[in-house]
């Protein structure tokens, strides 16, 4: 054990924490620069503390590599990481996300029209949501083959329910007066949908879309544990764990975290544009 590293990590953490609190409460806290700086400082803090702990406690590489080791691996493996990223994120996760969220949205709109279908399908939707990926993935791999199609199918199953629940809830989120107004115009079902219920549902729909971004990535990666071609983030992770290449494992995890956060951020940005009128965006 080397105390120097441990104490360094502790001091760094305390200092960064104090800095962040000052920044967030400062007059500049509304600015974009501070909005970026705070999470970055937070992240750097985590990395420094991590490095300090790993070095200070002499944690073996096969248990937890230090960020510096992960970074070194990262820069030397960019081509592999890119290939894996395309396979898992672009082909698997994105396809599944679009199909799954789209299907859930359409289902929500369809069953929204019929109380009967709603009463019948929502409980069944609960059912689908609870199908654990551990069970569905082997079946879907058996049905759709080893390549990314089965990963997309797993993602579809995973994102469907959160999206469905949120959309259904959102479509119900209008006030009586807003609906009455539409009645006085004798607006058709479709008009009420496009001009009132969908705009009013947007905050909820984006809730579902945001939750689904992270589910999609996890789903695509985990599904690869159950059979895959010899590329992909999940394949690499499970293979490298077996080889004790923990630095590569964490490099893949870093890619996942960066891609996932960027994906989430993009959806959140669109949300800001679409639901600018909602109190949660104004306040």
């Amino acid at each position: 054990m080397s105390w120097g590293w441990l104490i360094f990590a502790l001091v760094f953490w305390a200092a960064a924490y104090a800095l962040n609190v000052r920044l967030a409460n400062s007059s500049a806290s509304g600015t974009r620069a501070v909005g970026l700086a705070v999470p970055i400082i937070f992240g750097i803090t985590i990395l420094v503390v991590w490095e300090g702990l790993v070095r200070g406690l002499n944690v073996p590489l096969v248990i937890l590599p230090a960020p510096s080791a992960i970074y070194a691996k990262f820069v030397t493996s960019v081509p592999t990481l890119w290939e894996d990223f395309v396979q898992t994120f672009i082909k698997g996760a994105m396809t599944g996300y679009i199909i799954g969220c789209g299907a859930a949205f359409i289902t929500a709109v369809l069953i929204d029209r019929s109380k009967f279908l709603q009463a019948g399908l929502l409980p069944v939707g609960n059912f689908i949501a609870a199908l654990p990926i551990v069970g569905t993935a082997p079946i879907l791999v058996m049905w759709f083959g080893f390549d990314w199609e089965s990963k997309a199918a797993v993602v579809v199953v995973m994102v469907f329910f959160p999206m469905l629940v949120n959309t259904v809830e959102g479509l119900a989120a209008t006030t009586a007066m807003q609906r009455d107004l539409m009645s006085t115009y004798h607006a058709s079902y479709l008009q009420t949908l496009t001009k009132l219920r969908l705009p009013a549902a947007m905050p909820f729909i984006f809730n579902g879309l945001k939750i689904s971004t992270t589910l999609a990535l996890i789903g695509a990666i985990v599904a690869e544990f159950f059979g895959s071609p010899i590329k992909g983030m999940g394949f690499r992770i499970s293979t490298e764990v077996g080889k004790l290449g923990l630095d590569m494992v964490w490099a893949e995890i870093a890619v996942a975290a960066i891609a996932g956060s960027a994906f989430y951020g993009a959806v959140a940005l669109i949300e800001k544009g679409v639901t600018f009128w909602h109190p949660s965006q104004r306040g």
Partner: protein
Amino acid sequence: MKTILPILTVVAAIVAIWYAAAIPMNAQWAKDQAARADTTLTTGELVLDTWSQERPRLPAPHQVLSELWDSTGDMALNGRAFSKRSLILHAWYTLSATLLGFAIGTGLGILLAVGIVHSKAMDMGVMPWAIASQTIPILAIAPMIIVVLNSMGISGIIPKAIISAYLSFFPVVVGMVKGLRSPAMMDLDLMRTYSASRSQTFWKLRLPASMPYLFASLKVGIAAALVGTIVGELPTGAIRGLGARMLSGSYYGQTIQIWSALFAAAILAALLVGIIGIIQRRSLKRMGMAA
């Protein structure tokens, strides 16, 4: 009655589609087997065969149900409800870890949401990392979590519950942040005219206003917690719980066993979500929010 009929209709439709789908899904195998045995099948034989294979690609509903019954009700009737072969016992293992994980996860999620809504530093600093945390494939780090916890002497239900909490806290955070921010400007202004403290504004305005969001997130959260527990059952040696059953089913190619464990998990989840739905209806009614 009013709720049962639609569900029955939908279920009936699904069962019908399911039986129909089983035919093309399993036909190839039936034909191959016939070819290997040098016989040909009539259409009727083919259909019957696709519904009764031992290792079908898609087991027929009655196969799943009978396996489910054999490993639950039937065992219970024989007084073996809690034998190792009984799904009831495994469902119980999973349920207990799920409930603990859900409690930890929602507790943490609500706390985080409260912090994020009240502290700018947390909003800016924590939210991006909470998001990043969810993009880390849990199955990849679950073994490490378990190894680390193990070396700290923690084992049993706790590691599973932690993984389950890890998956369930996020939907709760996202939903609750939105919900706690949902009061209109005027509602907040009213609180400001009373010079209400932050905690008063929280308890009397933000929390009640967030109720619809809370329940929506709880429903997603409990389903996520269940999935988390089952995922967590793999790197703990996959010896107990529905996850272990799915895995061993998968390992030995027992499609029907996977499906029945899957169904057990889904039934469990439907029950849990249903319970939250009941609580939701009750409390929204008490709050005058049910229409």
